[in-house]
């Protein structure tokens, strides 16, 4: 791999990392608005407020960067980067077209799961370092939630890895067949629910429950660092949606996979992202105990059952 190719891949991933979350964010703005009988942003950029998030970014840059005096200074300042950068790494491993991924590592499934877990660590750091009771409570809730929901995600993905017989996303997507959508349906549901919870999105946004905790672990953040947390949230949606699209929906599989494969991957990921937004609008927030109950009494057993079914299927040679 030449240096030029490395640069091209890195830059294209960076561009995707900076544009796709904004696309999801804008979709959320408009879709949520119309689902609530509103119009959403209409003026920024001229046409239906397409530049609203760009304008928001400009606003965030202009704001003062405040570090509370009692805060654990370095941890506090580092937390947004810890939250954001792992999603960049995760995005780089996602295959976009047949045989094309920015980073082709043998165990990319493990890498992507590890990276998203590290991203959640940023929330914990922010909550602990802020020297704020709301932030601390939010961070603790986030910790409890991440511990609970990491497990179903890993189990569901492990089931897919067993079914495909590989830990590489490229190989897994290559071996995907539509039959998997039925066979792995419980695992897909578990992954989708757990991914929304992992991202701390409504209805699983207990850690940032604004009526109780102001903004949870992000309470003390201002300006660009706060924007990084928001960007991390939407980058998380992008990564989780694309991961779901490649693993369960077949990624580039569709008409003309060699030329239009990237389009199918992005479209499937977009549909999943729309579902994540839709769920946010339609459903109320779960209480903390309901949240834990759902994870341990429903998602984990369901994922284990899926793992068993997959194991039986692999041994029997389905």
């Amino acid at each position, binding site marked *: 791999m030449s240096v030029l190719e490395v640069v091209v891949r890195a830059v294209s991933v960076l561009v995707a990392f900076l544009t796709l979350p904004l696309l999801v964010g804008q979709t959320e703005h408009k*879709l949520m608005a*119309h*689902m*609530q*009988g*509103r*119009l959403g942003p*209409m003026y920024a950029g001229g046409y239906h407020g397409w530049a609203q998030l760009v304008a928001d970014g400009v606003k965030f840059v202009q704001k003062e960067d405040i570090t509370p005096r009692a805060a654990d200074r370095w941890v506090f300042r580092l937390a947004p980067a810890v939250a954001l950068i792992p999603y960049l790494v995760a995005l780089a491993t996602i295959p976009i077209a047949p045989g094309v991924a920015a980073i082709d590592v043998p165990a990319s499934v493990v890498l992507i799961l590890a990276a998203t877990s590290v991203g959640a660590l940023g929330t914990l750091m922010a909550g602990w370092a802020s020297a704020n009771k709301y932030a601390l409570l939010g961070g603790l809730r986030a910790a409890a939630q991440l511990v609970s929901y990491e497990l179903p995600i890993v189990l569901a993905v492990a089931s897919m890895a067993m079914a495909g017989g590989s830990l590489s996303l490229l190989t897994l997507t290559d071996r995907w067949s539509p039959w998997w959508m039925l066979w792995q349906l419980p695992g897909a549901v578990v992954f989708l629910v757990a991914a929304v919870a992992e991202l701390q999105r409504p209805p699983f946004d207990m850690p940032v429950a604004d009526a109780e905790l102001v903004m949870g672990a992000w309470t003390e953040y201002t300006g660009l660092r706060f924007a990084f947390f928001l960007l991390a949230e939407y980058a998380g949606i992008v990564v989780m949606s694309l991961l779901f699209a490649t693993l369960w929906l077949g990624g580039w599989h569709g008409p003309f996979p060699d030329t239009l494969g990237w389009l199918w991957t992005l479209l499937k990921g977009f549909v999943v992202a729309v579902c994540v937004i*839709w*769920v946010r*609008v*339609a*459903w109320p927030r779960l209480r903390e105990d309901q949240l834990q*109950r759902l994870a341990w*009494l429903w998602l984990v057993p369901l994922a284990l059952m899926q793992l068993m079914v997959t194991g039986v299927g692999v041994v029997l040679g389905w």
Partner: protein
Amino acid sequence: MVSKKAGSLPGLLKGMVTTARTALRPTQTAEYPDVAPDLPPRSRGVIALLEENCTSCMLCARECPDWCIYIDSHKETIPATTEGGRERQRNVLDRFAIDFSLCMYCGICIEVCPFDALHWSPQFEYAEVDILDLLHEKDRLSGWMATVPPPPALDERSAEPAEIAAANKPARGTGLVGGAGAAGGAAGGPGARMPRTVRPRPAGAGPTRGAAAPTEALPAGVPTADPPTGDPTEALPTGTVPPPAKEPLTGTPESVPDDSPTPPPVDEQT
């Protein structure tokens, strides 16, 4: 938990269906600065002043609950129009201001104005950076008059407006009583109904001119002499003219003795 889950699942789906249906429906949003709001008639935006109607009677300023109307006026003396007549005094409006930073838009000033000098205008876009600029002086208040809409149409089968009802109301004594009805019927116009009794009238003086006869008789008698400018010496001969003007009044009792006071008020209406 199982039964609870089974019970909540349709609810979750219902929520998603509801949001999706709302998303597909066009929104009702009117984007205000681009689209003018469709305000109902009688919207209370700003108070407009029709300066010509204002007599500086101060009723509005006194009735204003938060005293936000400021009126300054002075009296001017109008010389008598007729020689030896009484001088009259007239209020001249110097300042009329409404402080819209105090106004609570109750509309009492508009209700209370006896001369329709104040009107509601639906215009509401007069926000200011400085609160002191919300004090609208006379010229600015008069400028709002252009935005005052015509009064909305009356509801179906509603009562007539008071002015029209008063004008349409037949004068007292019409119809059955013959002599008085002859006078009251003249409100419909000069040719509507002539008096049944033939009255001797000065030539050229129609029935409508009866009331104006004293003033018109003056220029007719002395065309060049305006009453204020008339010299006392010339006034003496003109002083003899008014008696002929009173002749119709004195003449009518001779022919119709029973309803002599009625013709002047009836003719004033026309």
